[in-house]
């Protein structure tokens, strides 16, 4: 198991039941259950039908979590995704209004996102000395700026031909399509991160980029691919977001980057790179969504909800450190 990174670095093998339940992900699952029971208790309207109906809007942000987790594993960060979502959503609306068939609208939107991601990737690969925080801060402003120019003086565009967007917002029974898509893409991303050479190289680069380079990992290629993936998934998120908003404006996607980073960090993925597992991020995303829906249903002030989520996040970052400290004490 050595070399495989978890939240806690531990030399002893962990493939026993007890260890699993005590692992960060196990804790998250228990927390998820508790949150659901808690929400059920505080709100009589916290039913499966209602939760699933409220969920799609939040689910689109989970698409950002997967590639964001990869970027964090690399030890990088991308704060331009919110703007990529805004620009892709703008293109989606304008393309759809121009009467272009919906499949081509999807392609154009994803292409827009991919180009945004490639721009980030290209700059970071060409100028490795630049910190990704600053580069993506720059592109965050640039992408949103372009979107604002396209949107023009009104700052808002609405979809006139909503048929395509209505179609992707459809449901199978009570489950919206996006629910399945999130789970499937989540599974693919999780498998890639733990079962493939590419996944291993993510952790390797995040742990030590220089050593990875000397051991033959194509660091630049991996970085470029991951940032492009980020752009593509930002575009997918934009498509689904547009299917619930029927339009885009200059505030679309505001703060999404931080939500995605928060989900990942809550799930145990360290921003310093090389640590954490995506499954934790996925579970914590559902924890955050369920908590927001539940507290929203009892009409709690949204600012208070944000404070609760912020406090949870700090606890999530703090807990592993505290428990690691305790373990060290026990051993000595």
């Amino acid at each position, binding site marked *: 198991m050595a070399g495989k990174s978890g939240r806690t670095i531990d030399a002893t093998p962990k493939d026993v039941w007890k260890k699993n339940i005590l*692992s960060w992900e196990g804790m998250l699952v228990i927390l998820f259950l508790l949150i659901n029971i808690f929400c059920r208790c505080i709100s009589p309207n916290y039913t*499966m039908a209602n939760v699933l109906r409220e969920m799609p809007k939040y689910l689109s942000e989970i698409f950002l979590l997967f590639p964001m987790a990869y970027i964090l594993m690399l030890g990088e960060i991308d704060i331009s995704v919110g703007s990529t979502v805004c620009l892709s959503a703008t293109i989606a609306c304008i393309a759809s209004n121009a009467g272009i068939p919906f499949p081509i609208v999807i392609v154009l939107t994803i292409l827009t996102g991919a180009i945004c991601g490639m721009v980030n990737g290209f700059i970071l690969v060409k100028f490795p000395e630049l910190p990704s925080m600053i580069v993506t801060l720059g592109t965050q402003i640039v992408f949103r700026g372009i979107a604002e120019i396209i949107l023009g*003086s009104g700052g808002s565009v609405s979809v006139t031909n909503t048929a395509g967007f209505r179609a992707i917002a459809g449901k199978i029974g009570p489950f919206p399509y996006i629910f399945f898509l999130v789970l499937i893409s989540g599974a693919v991303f999780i498998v890639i991160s733990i079962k493939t050479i590419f996944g291993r190289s993510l952790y390797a680069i995040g742990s030590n980029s220089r050593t990875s380079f000397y051991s033959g990992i194509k660091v630049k290629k991996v970085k470029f691919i991951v940032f492009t993936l980020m752009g593509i998934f930002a575009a997918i998120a934009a498509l689904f977001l547009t299917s619930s*908003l029927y339009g885009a404006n200059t505030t679309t996607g505001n703060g999404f980057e931080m939500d995605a980073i928060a989900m990942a960090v809550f799930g145990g993925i360290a921003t310093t790179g090389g640590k954490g597992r995506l499954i934790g991020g996925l579970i914590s995303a559902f924890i955050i969504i369920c908590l927001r829906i539940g507290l929203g249903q009892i*009409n709690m002030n949204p600012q208070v909800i944000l404070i609760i989520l912020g406090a949870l996040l700090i606890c999530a970052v703090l807990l592993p450190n505290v428990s690691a400290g305790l373990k060290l004490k026990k051993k000595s």
Partner: protein
Amino acid sequence: MKKKVLSVLLCAAMAAGMLAGCGGDDKASTDDANKPAASDADGSAAGKKFALVTKSAGNPYNEKEAEGFQQAIESIGGECIIKHPESATADAQVSVIQSLISQGVDSICIAANDENALQAALEDAMAAGIKVSCLDSKTNAASRMTFANQAGTTEIGQALMDAVYDIAGGEGDWAILSATSQATNQNAWIDAMKDIMENDSKYANLNLVEVAYGDDEPVKSTDQTQALLSKYPNLKVICAPTTVGIAAAAKVLQDQSSAVKLTGLGLPSEMAEYIGDDDAHSCPYMFLWNPIDVGRLGAYISAALVDGTITGAAGETFEAGDMPNSPYTIVDAGDGGTEVILGAPFKFDPTNIEEWKTVY
């Protein structure tokens, strides 16, 4: 192995979550089934839930509207839910609307952050039997049943025209300081003023010399005011139907102790130091709508929609408690939907400005 265990745990958690959810489903549906029966039995608002969604928390104008909404709903015995979205975006309002649908409220009254973006969510709400109306700022016609409009174009034109007439003493040169030349609401008000001036001989001795555009920028509005003063030495009154323009012009006129007087639409908090009857103040009085009344009108519209008095079609009338213009009539809004106009704008003069300047 570890992953398998984890996935099993995850699945179990999901299943448990779903089960916990399913438990409540039957109850919710029976509740829904009982609701219409109860409302048929008595037409009162008791036991009904009326929700108001504001543009964002910490918007003082919206909070005054919420206050009015709450007062009116409580006076008719309904339950009032005020929801502030977490940010001033349509996106945040969608979450709030979805949450209100889950709660099974009877009506949603919303100050929209975007005309079109709320359509999907509000259509969902209407499909769930919730009565949707807007106040303050409207959504498109398809996403609402009707709209509590604070600012009827002719009412504003008339109020401003009368103010100019009154302050100028019935005759003389006056000018308009507007926002941008494309601003729809500004142009509608200016056109209304021009119409009134042309069609009524009472205003025949008033001479509109220029419509200047300050683009709603303080500096440009200041420059435009200076330009008006130097170009037209006989100018008596400037009318600025924009909050930015009126504040900028008020400062210029007051600093220069100009004889030119000012009126228009302004925020009491920004204009308090300029409002007064003597020569030391540049603005004798000005207008804006009363947000508390906007909220109350929104509440009465919601109540009338819920008890079936109105459906939102033009021509219907409803009682609005003790509001001055009650009963109100729904009129065509010109965008394919309908609206209810609150009435003439509210006048801010030296007698009430102290009270209002802390409000908004």
